[in-house]
């Protein structure tokens, strides 16, 4: 088994807002091994993006990491100074964002933005950086890289911009790549190209990837392991086969059933009732209980403990504690 690259323990991230302090991430723990892809799944507002921004220490001004540790290659990122972090970001850990147009600087050429990390982190000369950038653009499958170097982000298509972002992220051979919904804004044919590219490069560079997405199809395609988040908490974690074949948390099951299938016509959609709670809402017990069809009194009063199903599969749900019948769930899945 490959060694652990990143270990997040009990991460709590809060935001101070006009309505008081709210917790976006509530005690999340997970780890990523070298060369592994971890998918973080959940709907908007579940804290998946904030988790990744916390790792990068790129939280907005009103956000703070309240407690917990983020251990990356032997260092605790939470305790590092700004200067030390700057040396890690874009070098050892890099990030791809959902909207490449907003992540790229519109007033600098693609070439300038690609050269910058190379000159900064790898101390290359401008000419060396230039040549290396062209190589990188070739690597991500951009035709006419010399021409693209002189262009500005607005002159490129969405798929092309995302490739530039990836080229930039990979410039210094990071050991961890965090991709926050990298293909959500793209069309499916372009999405397929980008996903293939990430997989290909991951294998070539033996890079670990944290992929944040809400698309279960993308998860199945990319993940080695999956972490499902709901309302700031991890509700289930497991290897990708277990999560799809044997989901244990009612929310994971619900998510899987809410996706209309392309291949199966007779497929019946089963929406999860209700809506995601807002961060301000106070929920006692299990955070999913107001939407859960199997909620009991216990779920309403006490938060469920984490239960290990197998070595690579764990879930936080009172139903797993054996006190309650599992029947309705089983009936629904069969």
């Amino acid at each position: 088994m490959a060694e652990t690259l990143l270990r997040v323990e009990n991460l709590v991230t809060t935001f101070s807002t006009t309505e008081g302090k709210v917790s976006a991430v509530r005690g999340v723990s997970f780890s990523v091994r070298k060369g592994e892809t971890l998918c973080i799944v959940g709907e908007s507002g579940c804290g998946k993006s904030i988790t990744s921004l916390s790792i990068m220490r790129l939280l907005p001004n009103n956000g703070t990491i309240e407690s917990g540790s983020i251990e990356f290659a032997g260092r605790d990122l939470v305790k590092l100074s700004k200067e030390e972090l700057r040396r890690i970001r874009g070098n050892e850990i890099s990030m791809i964002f959902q909207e490449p147009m907003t992540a790229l600087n519109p007033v600098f050429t693609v070439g300038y933005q690609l050269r910058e990390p190379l000159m900064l982190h790898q101390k290359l000369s401008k000419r060396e950086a230039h040549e290396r950038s062209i190589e990188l653009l070739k690597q991500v499958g951009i035709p006419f890289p010399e021409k693209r170097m002189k262009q500005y982000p607005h002159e490129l298509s969405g798929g092309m911009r995302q490739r530039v972002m990836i080229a930039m992220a990979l410039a210094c051979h990071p050991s961890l790549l965090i991709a926050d919904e990298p293909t959500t804004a793209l069309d499916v044919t372009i999405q397929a190209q980008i996903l293939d590219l990430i997989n290909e490069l991951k294998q070539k560079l033996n890079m670990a990837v944290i992929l944040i997405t809400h698309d279960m199809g993308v998860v199945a395609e990319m993940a080695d392991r999956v972490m499902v988040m709901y309302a700031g908490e991890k509700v289930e974690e497991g290897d990708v086969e277990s999560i799809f074949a044997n989901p244990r948390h009612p929310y994971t099951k619900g998510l899987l059933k809410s996706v209309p299938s392309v291949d199966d016509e007779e497929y019946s959609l089963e929406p999860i009732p209700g809506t995601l709670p807002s961060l301000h809402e106070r929920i006692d017990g299990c955070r999913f209980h107001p939407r859960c069809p199997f909620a009991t009194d216990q779920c309403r009063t006490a938060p469920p403990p984490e239960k290990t199903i197998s070595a690579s599969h764990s879930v936080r749900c009172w139903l797993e504690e054996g006190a309650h019948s599992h029947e309705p769930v089983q009936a629904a899945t069969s």
Partner: protein
Amino acid sequence: MSQSKQPLLKLENVKKYYPIRGGLLRRIQGYVKAVENVSLDVFAGESIGIVGESGCGKSTLGRTILGLEEATGGAIFFRGEEISRLPERQRKKWKKEMQMVFQDPYASLNPRQRIGHALEEAFVIHTNMTKAEREERVLQLLQEVGLRPEHYDRYPHEFSGGQRQRIGIARAIALNPSLVICDEAVSALDVSVQAQIIKLLKDIQEKHELTYLFISHDLGVVRHFCNRVLVMYLGHAVELAPSRELYANPLHPYTKALLSAIPRPKPGVKRERIRLEGDLPNPANPPKGCPFHTRCPVATERCKQERPEWKEAASSHFVACHEVK
């Protein structure tokens, strides 16, 4: 699917070009051909999906049908009457027959208007109801789309995305239209909420005998929702078939590529993926011949020169491709 003699909506070679102006005198220098020669019969009670990637003209087609954009060429018949050239005044009676649900309901609601009043407006314009009657009807509508009476006095920002889409739907069905165009109506929603809205749209269709034009880029949702599917590429219709047929037996290489590109929620299953190279060509400067030939894996010399005809390859399965016999 009801196969009544006369289609509810008939499109004949509908075109929509946008002029590109430039130079000192802002002369027209060319056109972006957003929709090019699309023909389609829509029968009462069916749901037709219009799919394609961004920029393929699917939204423009929807807007042109509603008259939000003026068609550049071709004809649009609604219940047998040509509507694309009608003056504004005469259009009004058709307007309540055709409604639209937009992708972002927040953008289509006035942030300073209470939901109840926003919904009431349609009745003020199109009916002679009294204030009390209107209010009663709005409350009825709210209930129908799964909202509560107390929502009447709230403002748009007080609602979640799913609830706003419910308001969008309530607004669309207020005047009992016969045709509702859903333009990416569920695309912006989270999956759990998306499934709720799809269910709601289906329930409403059954109750009001609605006909849907369902514009979406999500082929999973479309399969689930529609009887027939029209695939568009760069303003052109490339394939039209009953859903079952299209998903089981796609004929056009673009449809095949599109279907193969969707990530399936089944880990470990390695699919044969047809990789399309490159991006969508610029619609202001579309390729000659078949619009898809630049990215098509089976393109021949002929595809570069000749535009393929729209033909019926199998029973009610239409396709525009030279390579399909």
